[in-house]
């Protein structure tokens, strides 16, 4: 028996072989193909192959007007659609030197934070599912549904809203918006304790996440890993803190920073961030000033010739928009620096030397959204 098994085992141990993870794999959360070089079950290196859903949004933008472009940004990181809209709106408003009403700033901040919570909820439930806890998936989706209901009531859609327009909002919030948001926060403050009980405090999850996929602060900066993934490595990169926009300079909140840099740290940052987002909403929801829901804008928006750069903190990191305008109603060149594109590039670095099962945990903790990578 020994003689039969050993040559095979030896062969597997010594030879490096490549397997495809994806393009259709539940833990890549979309159409992403990872070609993993394995020795036994140790990951030697990893090559991501993207482009399965590349739509050429940057090229399409060159034919579209700015209000049209907002609808395309929804389709990048569809889980933080509002925040993507916000980036383009802020850029246009900065270029035209439009001062938006205070009411708009407050509503945008609240809606951004709701969007961030919804996005982190979906991350939490899929992260649990990646590690084998299917219950998490139902818990997370159940609570995310409440936010989507609020979105649907006020903005008419659940996922791709295009609610922000340059200068303001598409329409005013629903009369029951404030009440519903407050009800949700009261509800979710209780439910997030269940999240901790079911997954954060779970020994199996902690054992699988602690010390796995270590990323140092220097590496995080060099690879441009931002958002909760970067803050798990102690890299202070919160755009809301460093370059405040909308009403973020009026609220008190903490930038969640952990220094371990492993999968568990990235997990804990997101759990804390959901609580911080609720704190931000609570400070604003009762103080929304009265007024217009949009500034006066021209019917055709033409940016003055020049270059503009705007950053926002999307749910997964820094989203930067860079526009070169030649004075027309369409941009000459529009670039989206999407957070997931940079976060994906570090996956090879952090997963080298780990087991293939850990790769699923690391991928889950980086929280990649594939349409944002491919654009």
């Amino acid at each position: 028996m020994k003689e039969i098994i050993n040559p095979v085992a030896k062969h597997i141990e010594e030879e490096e072989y490549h397997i495809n993870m994806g393009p259709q794999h539940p833990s890549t959360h979309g159409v992403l193909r990872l070609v993993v070089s394995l020795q036994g079950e140790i990951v030697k290196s990893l090559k991501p192959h993207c482009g399965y859903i590349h739509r050429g949004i940057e090229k399409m933008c060159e034919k579209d007007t700015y209000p049209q472009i907002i609808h395309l940004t929804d389709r990048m990181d569809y889980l933080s659609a509002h925040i993507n809209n916000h980036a383009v709106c802020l850029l246009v408003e900065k270029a035209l030197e439009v001062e938006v009403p205070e009411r708009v700033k407050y509503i945008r901040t609240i809606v951004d934070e709701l969007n961030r919570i919804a996005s982190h909820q979906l991350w939490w439930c899929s992260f649990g599912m990646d590690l084998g806890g299917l219950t998490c998936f139902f818990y997370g989706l159940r609570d995310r549904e409440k936010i989507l209901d609020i979105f649907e009531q006020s903005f008419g859609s659940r996922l791709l809203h295009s609610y922000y327009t340059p200068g303001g909002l598409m329409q005013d919030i629903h009369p029951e918006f404030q009440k519903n948001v407050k009800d949700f926060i009261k509800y979710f403050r209780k439910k997030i304790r269940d999240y901790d009980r079911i997954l954060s405090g779970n020994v199996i999850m902690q054992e699988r996440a602690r010390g796995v996929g270590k990323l140092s602060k220097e590496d995080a900066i060099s690879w441009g890993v931002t958002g909760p993934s970067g803050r798990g490595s102690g890299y202070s990169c919160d755009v809301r803190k460093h370059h405040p926009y909308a009403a973020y300079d009026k609220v008190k909140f903490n930038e969640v920073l952990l220094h371990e840099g492993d999968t568990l740290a990235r997990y804990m940052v997101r759990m804390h961030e959901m609580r911080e987002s609720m704190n931000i909403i609570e400070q604003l929801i009762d103080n929304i000033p009265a007024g217009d829901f949009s500034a006066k804008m021209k019917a055709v928006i033409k940016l003055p010739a020049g270059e503009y750069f705007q950053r926002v903190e999307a749910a997964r990191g820094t989203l930067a928009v860079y526009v070169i305008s030649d004075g027309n109603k369409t941009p000459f060149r529009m670039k989206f620096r999407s957070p997931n594109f940079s976060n994906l590039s570090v996956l090879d670095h952090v997963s080298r030397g780990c087991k293939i099962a850990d790769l699923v945990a690391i991928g889950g903790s980086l929280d990649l959204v594939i349409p944002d990578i491919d654009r």
Partner: protein
Amino acid sequence: MDREKLKEKIQGLVPEILPEENKDFLAVTVPAAQLRKLVLALRNEPDLSFDFLVCLTGVDWGKELGVVYHFESTQHKHMLEVKVKTADRENPVLETVCDIWRTAEFHEREVYDLLGIRFNNHPDLRKIFLDESWVGYPLRKDYVDDVNFVEL
């Protein structure tokens, strides 16, 4: 470091740079031959220490092709925009920066894929989004695709 000081400092390092007026932060254009000298100084000089490459954009300006870099220093919080251009549209080649900022590796592959700019010393310069058999570079202004492109 504020804008004027930053401008003086960079002009001291590379006298050939051309500063530009920009709303948010200092923008400079550097000749392609001087790019490596400038970026190494930007990264390594202690009072500059631009350690975060926020954004790397490939641009087709019509006559020239080139790349726009947005740098930020996480320590000093200042920002800088650097442009580098090449007039050679047939075989555009620039120097890589991905040994200094690792995030540039993917971004330069994207620029190569969509604009056809090659980067010297890049470790793995392959197309990233489009198929290997794709002909032409879609983000170029003179790109024509009769099959897949719908003209409105």
